[in-house]
């Protein structure tokens, strides 16, 4: 019987210590699991709003958006942060956001603004591209690849690991980069050539990077699909900061796909005025300058200064792979299906 009493005590403890929520003003931001913010910025955020800011991380990007759509009549939050450009059309079609043009609109990078009604406003961006192990190529005296075309070259046979676009968001971004580069007709041929060149496909970024990439694991693949800012993270998270990042990126010749993340105010939010204020803060330099080291992506506000590790080691492509959002939404499933049939 001791066990039963022990459990009863524990249960009551849980009840007691569970936070008793006071009826204070608060605003909730629903987002994906990669979202992060630093303590001082959150404190300023709450001060600027005069309200408590609750952040609700709700699974990976696709899962979180799906939850927002499912709960649209009685939303879980006031703001949704993290619709990316591949899901952009779908989010707008579901009609879950209200238009709001934030104060700093003029400072946002104009090429990122995709919704003329400002239901979704760009908050950050990053480029998905090939990363390679610099040391690996140096010791073998092989030139690292310069673009997507190189990967089908026999020199690079058995060197690349990519993610399944059906289960991974960088994987999908990379598939879209190949569609953009080789066209709707040519991309499958390109992938078939990759397959003959002994490409390795895994399901997610974690397995690819931590399981097979030579620079990060005991794996045997020196080329991996990751972000153009990953080298900065490699430097930032090294115990003794090296002068040069151990990994390099391939971003030229339209080989990198730009992932833009958007935020918007959810339609049935109970406190829309507060939500508007919150959107202004999210796009202000204070919040935007916090983004790089929290999420390892770039701010959308051009007036936001970048940290040194970013200016030194992270890259932005001048020539990203582009696809029309409508086209992406219309054909995404078909491309994934065709890819699955041809590659798996």
């Amino acid at each position, binding site marked *: 019987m001791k066990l039963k009493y022990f*459990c009863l005590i524990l249960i009551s403890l849980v009840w007691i210590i569970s936070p008793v929520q006071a009826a204070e003003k608060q605003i909730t931001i629903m987002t994906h699991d990669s979202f992060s913010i630093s303590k001082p910025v959150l404190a300023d955020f709450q001060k600027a709003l005069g309200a408590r800011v609750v952040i609700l991380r709700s699974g990976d990007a696709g899962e979180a958006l799906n939850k927002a759509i499912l709960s649209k009549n009685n939303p*879980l939050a006031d703001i949704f942060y993290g619709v990316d450009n591949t899901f952009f059309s779908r989010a707008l079609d579901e009609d879950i956001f209200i238009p709001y043009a934030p104060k700093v609109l003029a400072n946002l990078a104009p090429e990122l603004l995709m919704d003329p009604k400002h239901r979704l406003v760009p908050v950050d961006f990053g480029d998905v591209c090939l990363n390679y192990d610099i040391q690996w190529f140096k010791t073998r005296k092989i030139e690292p690849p310069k673009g997507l075309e190189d990967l089908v070259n026999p020199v690079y046979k058995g060197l690349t690991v990519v993610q399944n676009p*059906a*289960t991974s968001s960088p994987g999908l971004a990379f598939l879209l980069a190949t569609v953009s580069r080789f066209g709707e007709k040519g991309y499958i041929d390109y992938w078939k050539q990759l397959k003959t060149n002994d490409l390795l496909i*895994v399901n997610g970024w974690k*397995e690819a990077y931590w399981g097979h990439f030579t620079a990060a694991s005991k794996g045997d693949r020196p080329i991996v699909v990751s972000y153009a800012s990953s080298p900065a993270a490699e430097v930032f998270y*090294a*115990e003794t900061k090296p002068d040069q990042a151990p990994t390099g990126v391939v971003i030229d010749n339209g080989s990198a796909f730009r992932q833009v993340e958007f935020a918007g105010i959810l339609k049935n939010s109970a406190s829309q005025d507060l939500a508007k204020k919150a959107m202004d803060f999210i796009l202000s330099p204070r919040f935007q300058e916090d983004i790089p080291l929290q999420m390892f992506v770039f701010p959308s506000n051009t007036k936001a200064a970048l940290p040194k590790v970013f200016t030194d080691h992270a890259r932005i492509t001048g020539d990203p792979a582009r696809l029309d959002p409508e086209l992406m939404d219309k054909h995404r499933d078909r491309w994934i299906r065709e890819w699955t049939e041809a590659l798996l």
Partner: protein
Amino acid sequence: MKKQIYTHPYFLAGLVPALFFLVFYFYPLSGIFLKSFFPKGEVNLLFLDQVLGSARMMKIIWFTFWQAALSTLLTLACALPAAFAMANYEFRFKKTLRLLASIPFVLPAVVVAAALESCFGRTGWIGEIRHPLALILLAHVFYNFSVMLRIITGYWTSLQGEIREAAAMLGASPAQAFFHVTLPLLRPAIWAGALLVFIFCFSSFGIILILGGPGYATIEAEIYRQAAHLFNLPLASFLSLVQIVFTFGLMSLYTRFSKRAAQFIPKAGEIRLKPPERPWEKSLVAGTALFIIIVCVMPMVSLAASSLVHNGDFSLAYYRAIFENTTDSVFYVPPFQAVQYSFIFAAGALAIALVAGVCAALFITHADRHIKSRLAAFFDPLFMLPLSTSAVTLGFGIIITLDHPPLNLRTSPFLIPLVHALVGFPFVLRALLPALRTIPAQMGEAAAMLGASPLKVLRHIDLPLMSRSLVAGAVFAFTISLGEFGATIFAAPPTTPTIPIAIYRFLGQPGAMNYGQAMAVSTILMAATALGFIIIENLRPGNAEGI
């Protein structure tokens, strides 16, 4: 008399798990199914084409079954001899070995993959296994060996003593006694263990995704893909339904079968086991120990080792780092706090699962004995369903149903122990039922005739006799909660992350420090689990040899 049966406290106890299931399982699920199959009030069955017309989908369903069957057979082949050694002999480090074998069960899939990779991977300590299917099977044995071992050993231990002695007295050789007495009596436990493992492998998700790569998919993995990435909710719901129907069918079959198993009186008191004496006995014990060390312990040791080696040297750098909030993130949670949250949630889940589990077990045995209806045959498999229900489907269901007071639990921390209890509860039930069924009905009836109230019967007869199994169930409920990931990720508010979520966060970013820290936190999870086991095993009633 009939009326008395329906108002008996054991019968009414069934209301507890029934209500728990109705509110936290069936209500959310029916919400998401209705939304998927009847959008805007009309029936939508378009998705059926995508299942019936697709060779890929049929392949997935087929693969789900045969990999689960193969994994279960392998696990059984490993666990049965080990259970024999554990249940029949007393030897040094027995408790420690049993404890170590149980830890893998709670490790998140990413960590298991890393552990197996460092042990059996390309540059592994022990050997090289490259085929994804072999790795999947190995991972399933690694995960589930202890489930099978604990269930069978627990039952087997209570078979010691008089029954075998009686068989020997009647002239049976040890082999005859084993095949004609022990094995038939053991059958319910073997079936219970095998079906649990089967259902686990049947709904395997993380392991298949990571170790199998994109070439292999189970129904569960496909549900996740369809729901979270392709927004194909109708198809995801349909597959969930298929999975639920299969589980129900399997469990009905099993429950009908296990009811026919023999009944006997288990001893609740102290059981003295002999040390192994003959050479074959010694080698069996040694083999068991060796198996546990190589398959269960070594991967964990190499995982712990990788958290202690930094740039080729021994270093505590990763451990120092997990106590620092380098980016000043608000989501940073000191590892000990994550351990604390994990323990609080696990204790809550354990309490709910135990109460619901004991009530359900009493209800089912009572219904079985006194009501010649199909009631028990229906509820028993029903209670097993959460084990193979996709977390993403249930999660979406909770979002659209539990969204108004008094049940607006969508963002409440209470949701975590509730969901964990839903998954831990079937273990408690499975562990309790075989023990409870073997208590002869006359015992309770005699006590009642002598004036004992049903509560008194519960306290002095039924509970002591099932104490051993109760501990086994509790260990599972607790550890499942510690390691649970799928449901936690959608239910846990960011400020109260559990250990698996902390690991997941570290693995979400590049940078060598992040990987090292993930391994360090995984090592802490292993230690915390071991601690949890030790605490629960020492809390067991009386001082009987625990399972």
